[in-house]
């Protein structure tokens, strides 16, 4: 604790601020209104990252974790699980569970594979520019329809979600096999493949700076708008230094992320082929072309923003929390919880469809086993990210951090050479431990 307190610079000492009466670390947190849970998760993530890096450096003589290359890959690998975790938050908040997301992903992926490789080229001609759009939309719609069907059985058929989606886990995995009789469909449409990342599926240095600057502008805009709202309604204002701190922290993280993804260059072979195709001569020292943000990461970001808006700013989101907090109260307040259940599972299914786009594009192929065991990682991400299985509590940003934690563990263990069996033991234990810590945390904050 004492070492934490000294982290606060003297010039941002929160004393004498009317907004809060506490001092020290507590005062700092009150002033910035930062969530201790969020900080805990960021701390855990930092620990995992530094831990793996040091382990690699000390034991293998090379710390491979904290490198642009690894972190960039980590961001891409997190996307697919992260997208689904956003939906799982809604499902778990309303005291349900969805065990079928991995299978829905597999079924959607193989269906999209058939659509873009067998069906659409026959109609539109091979390489038609609309193929990827139509295929992706079909996949998302298919997922949403399957999800609605599950939701319908749960809400109106009164079958527990556990059973419906356990059935779905088997049904859709089997159906995925039947769609293409177990064949792998490869390669997918070349534009479609960009949605999975890779050198061409990234937006490059300039694009990344543009995204980064927009994000910084949004952070500053939100802080200013929030301050104006508070003044308008005479709510206590955050101290000015705290606003500056949050703004600088947010923008610093964004710019750091841009610098990071821009520091990871295209591999030599791809640069050479690209240069040949474009008629550029490669200088002696080689050509440094940055990856920048990968497209699947931007998709995850867009999903996260949209879902956060949905959950925090709309009636729909308010009702999701209300149903989770007290289903009877929600019903008595005139909320149609059955219809809400259908909508929630529909969103979950649609996001599994979107994940299928990202996952099959990344592999540049669709197989019927794609997404196997993903349901466990998705549920684990949401739960590690603070979504309570008792219902009513959970955030989108938490789930994404949870997905990042899960993926970091996974990637880190591969990097330092743990075999698959140990990985499973560790991931399983971490899940149980995370939930236990969460219970302790909630017990204390009550």
């Amino acid at each position, binding site marked *: 604790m004492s070492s934490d307190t000294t982290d606060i610079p003297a010039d941002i000492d929160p004393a004498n601020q009317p907004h809060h009466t506490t001092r020290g670390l507590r005062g700092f947190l009150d002033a910035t209104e930062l969530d201790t849970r969020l900080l805990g998760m960021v701390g855990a993530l930092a620990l995992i990252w530094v831990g793996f890096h040091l382990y690699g450096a000390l034991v293998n003589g090379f710390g491979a974790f904290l490198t642009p290359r690894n972190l960039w890959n980590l961001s891409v690998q997190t996307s697919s699980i992260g997208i689904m975790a956003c939906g799982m938050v809604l499902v778990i908040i309303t005291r349900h569970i969805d065990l079928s997301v991995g299978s829905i992903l597999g079924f959607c992926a193989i269906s999209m594979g058939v659509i873009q490789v067998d069906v659409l080229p026959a109609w539109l001609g091979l390489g038609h520019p609309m193929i990827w759009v139509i295929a992706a939309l079909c996949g998302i719609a298919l997922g949403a329809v399957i999800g609605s069907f599950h939701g319908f059985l749960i809400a109106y058929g009164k079958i527990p979600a556990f059973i419906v989606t356990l059935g779905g886990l088997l049904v859709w995995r089997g159906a995925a096999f039947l769609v293409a009789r177990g064949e792998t469909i490869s390669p997918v449409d070349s534009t479609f493949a960009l949605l999975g990342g890779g050198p061409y599926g990234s937006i490059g240095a300039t694009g990344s700076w543009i995204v980064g600057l927009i994000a910084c502008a949004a952070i500053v805009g939100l802080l200013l708008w929030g301050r104006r*709202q*508070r003044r*308008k*309604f*005479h*709510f206590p204002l955050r101290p000015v230094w705290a606003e500056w701190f949050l703004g600088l922290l947010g923008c610093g993280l964004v710019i750091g992320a841009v610098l990071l993804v821009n520091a990871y260059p295209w591999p030599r072979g791809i640069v050479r082929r690209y240069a040949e195709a474009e008629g550029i001569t490669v200088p002696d020292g080689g050509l440094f072309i940055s990856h920048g943000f990968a497209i699947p990461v931007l998709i995850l970001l867009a999903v996260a923003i949209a879902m956060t*808006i949905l959950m925090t*700013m*709309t*009636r729909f*989101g*308010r009702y999701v*929390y*209300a149903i*989770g*907090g*007290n289903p*009877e*109260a*929600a*019903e*008595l*307040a*005139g*909320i149609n919880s059955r219809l809400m259940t259908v909508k929630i599972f529909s969103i979950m299914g649609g996001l599994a469809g979107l994940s299928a786009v990202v996952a099959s594009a990344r592999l540049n192929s669709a197989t019927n086993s794609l997404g196997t065991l993903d349901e466990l990682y998705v549920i684990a991400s949401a739960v590690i990210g603070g979504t309570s299985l008792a219902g*009513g*509590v959970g955030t989108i940003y938490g789930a994404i951090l949870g997905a990042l934690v899960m993926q970091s563990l996974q990637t880190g263990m591969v990097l330092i050479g743990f075999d698959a069996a140990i990985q499973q033991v560790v991931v399983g234990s971490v899940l149980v431990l995370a939930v236990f810590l969460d219970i302790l945390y909630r017990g204390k904050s*009550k």
Partner: protein
Amino acid sequence: MTDQTPLVEMKDICISFGGIHAVDHVSINLYPGEVVGLLGHNGAGKSTLIKILSGAYQMDSGEIRINGEKATIESPRDARRYNIETIYQTLALADNLDAAANLFLGRELTTPLGFVDDAQQEAETRKIMARLNPNFKKHKEPVSALSGGQRQSVAIARAVYFKARILIMDEPTAALGVHETQMVADLIQELKKQGLGIFLISHDTREMMDLCDRVSVMKNGKVVGTERVEDVTEDDILSMIILGKNPLREGAEEPA
């Protein structure tokens, strides 16, 4: 008062759950500015009766009239349309949401873009709580962090804010301490003065004698009797609850 149109008339209401006649041919009414108490043992059918009025249950037979006109109440939403608000002992708040979110639940204020206007909601909540319960400070915390009385004041604020004309209170003080019970009693008096009609359920006969204008006693789904509080003693009420007979008028119909 009797020559006015009643605010609520429930006539010959029946509902049964798998053979149990939870409410059995019950008729009861309520006038503006009046508090009618419902008394009776656990399982007498009090909650079931008022849940029919609040739209949580649908009656098997009978008729509900609001201001003399036949009303159809099939869901809580319908009940709200008739300005009926219900305050339950425990059920009605979502613990994980703050006071403002609970107050406006199902009827959120929105910005022109259709988003929930949390700032406006909080401002309105602060305003109304300043009036009803000036000690209320925990606007940012989920209502699980509030005391029973504070939670109840949020529920009551909801009724007041949305201009309820008919208020149903099912054991509103059962979970409260002495001080908080007094606060709720004061609120009831205040709302009565504003002309609301209130159905109040409570086990505390003394409290009911103080707050109500009339009391109805129920047993086994039937109304044993309805009396003006000035016409009866606490002992009369207790014997009605226990014996299921009205000592004042043996075998008499409900007074007009």
